[in-house]
């Protein structure tokens, strides 16, 4: 099951640039939450702070509290542990190109010392089914490499890889921006189904996608969270003029 995420007074920097300023936000469990905003607004930095990837950059740092359920991810857990519990899917599918489909999905578990073949088989099958990819690849699990399938399939493979380590939260940074409309629809259907088991945070530039998949939406601008509300409210009657100007295409 997914857990909720409570962010309090989160600030982040790249060098001297203050990229996130005093973010306070509650992301409910088992729902899809969309983050929107113009390029450079801080939304990707924000999700990278949620699984402590931000700090992997030597000139980056973050301060504040991020509670994942009862766990303060900056105090109570290591980055490795956090990244197991919070999976991430990126804009461009990034399967391991030399590994088979099977090994791509199993890689996270194997990295954690998981060796039981029967259980690995089960997890790979379950993860690929959850990612709605099983039927398309089940006959070629070990024959085809992760890079040999289509872009849309590769992205679902990356989702399966993230699910294999049994996370509670799935972060998606523009997961469909490089995909065609059919593959995009499959990813969106997947988000709809996965949210019953996971808490999903999706960064997107596609307003309609946010409107279709997310229960709540946050609008970022210049490193600040301008507005966070039910998606229906944000897209029909936002409270802040800056949100309205952005989603109606009047700037950004």
């Amino acid at each position, binding site marked *: 099951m997914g857990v909720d995420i409570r962010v309090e007074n989160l600030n982040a920097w790249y060098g001297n640039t203050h990229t996130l300023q005093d973010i306070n936000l509650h992301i409910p469990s088992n729902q899809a939450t969309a983050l929107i905003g113009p390029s450079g607004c801080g939304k990707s930095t924000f999700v990278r702070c949620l699984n402590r990837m931000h700090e992997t950059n030597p000139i980056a740092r973050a301060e504040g509290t991020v509670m994942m359920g009862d766990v303060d991810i900056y105090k109570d857990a290591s980055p490795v542990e956090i990244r197991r519990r919070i999976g991430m899917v990126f804009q461009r599918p990034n399967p391991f190109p030399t590994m088979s489909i099977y090994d791509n999905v199993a890689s996270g578990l194997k990295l954690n010392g998981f060796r039981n073949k029967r259980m690995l088989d089960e997890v790979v099958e379950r993860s690929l089914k959850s990612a709605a990819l099983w039927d398309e690849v089940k006959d070629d699990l070990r024959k085809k490499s992760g890079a040999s399938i289509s872009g849309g399939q590769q992205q679902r493979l990356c989702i399966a890889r993230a699910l294999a380590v049994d996370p509670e939260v799935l972060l998606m940074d523009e997961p469909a921006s490089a995909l065609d409309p059919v593959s995009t629809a499959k990813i969106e259907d997947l988000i709809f189904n996965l949210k019953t088991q996971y808490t999903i945070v999706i960064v997107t530039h596609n*307003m*309609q996608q946010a*409107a279709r998949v997310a229960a709540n939406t946050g609008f970022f601008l210049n490193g600040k969270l301008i507005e966070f509300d039910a998606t229906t409210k944000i*897209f*029909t*009657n*936002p409270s802040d003029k800056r*949100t*309205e100007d952005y*989603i*109606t*295409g*009047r700037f950004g």
Partner: protein
Amino acid sequence: MIRIQFQQNLDELKERLLIMAGLVEQAIQRATESYSTRDMGLCDLVRRSEPAINRMEREIDQAALDLLAMQQPMAVDLRFIIAVIRINADLERVGDQAVSIAGRVQEMGAFANVELPVDIPKLASLAAAMVRKALQAFIEGDADLAQSVLLLDDQVDEMNREAFRSLSLLISEKPEMTPQALNALIISRSLERVGDHATNIAEDVIFWVRGADVRHKGAELQ
């Protein structure tokens, strides 16, 4: 550039709706004038204006549908297009009421012109003022002006109820005046509906400008 085009499309949609509103206002004004003057020529003009109003209703609906499909508008733009679709339907129905009034006036022409205990011109003037104010609110995006239209509806309703009482009494006391009284009753009812449509238009303006759905609030309070 795409947003500039979209803004132009929204402006064109507004212009088309205002042309439609002009036709409808003219129809209702001619219909009510025909009541006072018994000018059958005006009645004919009202009836002949209906196809043009209907055609414009379809064109505006199609243009709004195209924008929804092609531009996927959000927030204030989405509310504007939804408001236009609703106002369009209300205007078309005001046009229908004008035709109905003109038809009643034509029928009354077959009977003696008698004094009736109802002030149709005053009711017509109030209903037309509601339409005009609601459209002015739409032109200016003025939710406060739209709000003021809602208050006028009670007056129109009361005048219609009074017409019903006095004309019912007339029918029972002077049955020979039943045809004229019945036609006047239907005209009064049509004007009351015109007031209702003006109220709807005002509510749609408030929805567009403020994002607030104020429909049926009065009824719910009662």
